[in-house]
């Protein structure tokens, strides 16, 4: 019988453009799910750089297994944000997957729709 175990962050979906101060999502330890195109990857440091438009983010991939990295491909990562003293952020990824073929417009639109739905639910429950 499986026990409850420790809580595991589900990863709040967020765009790279939203992930900058003073956004409340830009917080040390925040559990996030992000999407971007792989711009560079270092096998030595296991650090990947993903981009989305003019926004970018470093991803620490040392804990990922069975994932091959191809520059130019789209990836989605779930993990916790680490804010370093110089305010540079790195996502320590727990989970990652190649999402080549994902309809990005549809993905971003669905993100907005879910947020809208959740806000409507919260407003209804508070009345």
């Amino acid at each position, binding site marked *: 019988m499986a026990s409850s175990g420790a809580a595991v962050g589900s990863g709040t979906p967020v765009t790279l453009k939203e992930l900058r101060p003073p956004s409340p999502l830009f917080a040390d330890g925040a559990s996030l799910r992000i999407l971007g195109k792989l711009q560079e990857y270092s096998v030595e440091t296991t650090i990947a750089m993903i981009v989305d438009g003019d926004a970018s983010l470093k991803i620490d991939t040392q804990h990922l297994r*069975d994932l091959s990295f191809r520059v130019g491909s789209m990836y989605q990562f779930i993990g916790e944000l680490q804010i370093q003293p110089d305010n540079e952020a790195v996502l320590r990824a727990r989970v990652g*997957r190649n999402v080549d073929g994902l309809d990005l417009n549809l993905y971003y639109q669905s993100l907005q729709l879910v947020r809208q739905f959740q806000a*409507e*639910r919260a407003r209804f429950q508070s009345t």
Partner: protein
Amino acid sequence: MDKSLSLVHVKLLAFDLLSLAQSPPDTPTFSLDGVSLSRTEVLGVVVYLCGRRRTGCVPCILWLNHATSPYFARQRPQGVRLIADLANSQASLVKLGAVTRVCGRITSYQGAVQITASSVAVERDPNAEVLHLLDCLKLARRVYDRPGS
């Protein structure tokens, strides 16, 4: 009027599933805004695996103890073997990071909502999660008649 969707696998977003209340208490039925539910279909990324029997932040339980369970001891061995083989083959496909569709009964363990899976399938289409999400929103507004929708 209490609406019942107990006979169908209701497509729910994780935050809706996790806010379900057991109604009445200690029964296999749950309710969400007056709607009775007992089965669900969810889709998401596997972020946690424990002995191949638990996935994600919506805890999903896939039982693999058919050979030793007293519940299955009452059934025909050939049927139990088929069920066990199916469960084991489905469990072998579930990996950390995989997008997985789970259908099953909504249950509760130590006060927390979970799904006892009857079928588990890995989705290869990168758009599957988005399409499921849009399905959940559309069904919530047009079929489940969610207040505030």
